[in-house]
C-alpha cells in the first residue's frame, strides 16, 4: 500500500488551506495567539532567571580571616591550597592595612571615628571568588580546618536566601512553562480537532470511494504542520518585535538599572522560534492525525 506522492500531498494541502480559508485563518491565529502567550511567559521567565543569576553572582565571595601571628609562607601556603579547591575561581589577598582603609571608606562620614584607634584591630584576609555558589558550604568547611585561620565568613544567609529564591523562581518558572506548553498543546490540538470535525463528511466520503487511511491523512497531516508552522512564524514575529520594542523602551528609561541584565532580543528569539516551531508543527501534525482517527473508521 504505497503512500501517495509528496507532490499530491503538497498540492492538496495548499488547496484545502485556501478553500477552507476562513477556518485556516481562525486556526492559524488561534495557534499564534496561544504561542504568543507562551512566548511572553517564556521571555519573562528567562529574564527573571538571568537577573537572579546576576544578583547571585554579586555575593559569591568568601572572606577568610587569618591569624595575626601567621608568617608570610603560611599565608602563601593557605592561598595556594585554597585556589586548588573545587568551585574556587580566584583568591585575592587583602592585607590588614588595606582592610582598615576600606573600612574607613565604607563608614563614610563616621570614618573619622577609626582615627581614634591605637592599633589596627583588623586581620589579614583572603577573599575567595566562587565559581559556583553551590560549593560554598564545602569550601567553608574545608578551609575552617586549615591551620592559621582565625575565621571564615561568608554571607551565608544572604546567599542561602538567594539560592532559595533562584530555586523557587527556577522551579516555578519551569512548572509554569511546562503547564503552559501543555495547555498550548491542548488548545492547539482542540482547535485542529474542531476544524477537522467540520470536515468529517468530506473524510467519510473519501473513505467510501476507496481511499486508504494514509492517502487521506497525508494532506491533513501536512495541513496541520503548515497551520502550526504559520502560527509559529506569526507568533515569533509578534514576540520578536514586541520584545525588541519593550527592550528598547526599558533601556531608554532605566538604563542604569535592571536593563543591564535583560537578554537581547536577537538572543532570545532563537529559543522562541525553536520552541514554537516544534510545538506548532508537532502539535499541528499530531492533532490532525488524532482528530482524523475518529472519522477514518468507516
Amino acid at each position, binding site marked *: *500500500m*504505497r503512500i*501517495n506522492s509528496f507532490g*499530491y500531498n503538497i498540492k492538496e494541502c495548499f488547496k*484545502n488551506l485556501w*478553500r*477552507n480559508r476562513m477556518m485556516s485563518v481562525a486556526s492559524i491565529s488561534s495557534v499564534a495567539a496561544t504561542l504568543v502567550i507562551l512566548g511572553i511567559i517564556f521571555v519573562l521567565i528567562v529574564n527573571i532567571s538571568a537577573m537572579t543569576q546576576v544578583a547571585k553572582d554579586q555575593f559569591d565571595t568568601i572572606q577568610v580571616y587569618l591569624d595575626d601571628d601567621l608568617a608570610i609562607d603560611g599565608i602563601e601556603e593557605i592561598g595556594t591550597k585554597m585556589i586548588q579547591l573545587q568551585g574556587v575561581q580566584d583568591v585575592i589577598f587583602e592585607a590588614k592595612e588595606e582592610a582598615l582603609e576600606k573600612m574607613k571608606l565604607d563608614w563614610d562620614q563616621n570614618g573619622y571615628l577609626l582615627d581614634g584607634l591605637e592599633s589596627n584591630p583588623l586581620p589579614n584576609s583572603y577573599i575567595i571568588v566562587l565559581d559556583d555558589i553551590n560549593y560554598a558550604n564545602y569550601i567553608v568547611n574545608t578551609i575552617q580546618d586549615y591551620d592559621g585561620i582565625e575565621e571564615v565568613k561568608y554571607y551565608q544567609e544572604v546567599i542561602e536566601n538567594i539560592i532559595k529564591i533562584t530555586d523557587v523562581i527556577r522551579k516555578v518558572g519551569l512548572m509554569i512553562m511546562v503547564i503552559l506548553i501543555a495547555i498550548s498543546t491542548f488548545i492547539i490540538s482542540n482547535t485542529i480537532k474542531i476544524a477537522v470535525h467540520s*470536515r468529517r*463528511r*468530506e473524510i467519510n*466520503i*473519501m*473513505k*467510501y*470511494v*476507496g*481511499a*486508504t*487511511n494514509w*492517502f487521506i491523512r497525508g494532506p491533513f497531516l501536512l495541513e496541520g504542520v503548515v497551520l502550526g508552522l504559520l502560527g509559529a512564524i506569526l507568533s515569533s514575529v509578534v514576540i520578536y518585535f514586541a520584545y525588541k520594542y519593550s527592550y528598547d523602551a526599558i533601556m531608554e528609561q532605566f538604563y542604569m538599572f535592571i536593563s543591564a541584565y535583560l537578554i537581547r532580543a536577537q538572543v532570545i528569539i532563537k529559543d522562541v522560534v525553536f520552541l514554537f516551531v516544534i510545538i506548532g508543527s508537532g502539535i499541528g501534525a499530531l492533532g490532525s492525525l488524532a482528530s482524523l482517527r475518529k472519522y477514518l*473508521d*468507516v
Partner: protein
Amino acid sequence: MIKMLNVSKKYNNGVIAVANMNLNIKRGDFVFLVGPSGAGKSTFIKMLLKEENPTSGHVVVDDLDITKLHRRKVPELRRKIGVVFQDFRLLPNKTVYENIAFAMEITETKPRDIRKHVPMVLSIVGLADKQKMYPDQLSGGEQQRVSIARAIINNPPILIADEPTGNLDPETSREIMKLLLQINRRGTTVLMATHDKEIVDLMKQRVIAIEKGRVVRDELGGKYGYAD
C-alpha cells in the same frame, strides 16, 4: 460475484433492515433491485461496501468473504466497486473535475491518464462545460451525473447504482441506462436500486424485489411489478 448467505441486518435502534437474505449475483449480471421506500435496498448496498456490517450471515464479493475483512483491506474492496450513492456524496470542497480525478488519484493513476480520462467521462455524462464548478453550484441532476461519472471512471468490475436516475428527466435517464448497459456488456456486473418502473419494464433484466428486508421476487427479464 456477489453472494449473500443468510444475511441479516438489525440497526442499533432495533430496525431490521435486511432479514435472512440469500442471493447470488454472477459475474456480468445486470440486476435491478426494487422495492418500496425503506425496504432495505440501500442497506443491502451498504453491506457490500462494508459501510455497514451484517448482524449475521456472510457477504461474499469477488470470492472474498468480506464479513471478516480486515479494516486495512476495505479500501481495496471499495475500489473494486464503483458506486453511485443515493445522496451523491460529492466532495464539497472539490470541483467536478477534482471529484472525479480524486477517484483516480486514490488508485495512483498517472497524472497524464487522469488528465485524459476525466474530460472524457464528463462529456459522456453531458457535463463537459461544468468541470470547474463546485457541487453546490450544480442542479440536482447534474450532481447525480457527477456521481455516475465518478463511479465508472476506474472501470470497476462491479458497478452499483442506488437510485441513479431519481433526479434525472426521462431522456437523460434513458441515456444513462444505455451507458450502464454498455458498461455491463463489457463484462461489468451491474446492480441498480431503482423506483423507475418504466426503465425496469423496458430493460427486461433480472429483477430482485425486496420488501421489509426480504427477497419477495427474483426473476429474469422481470418487470418492476408493483402498482400494476
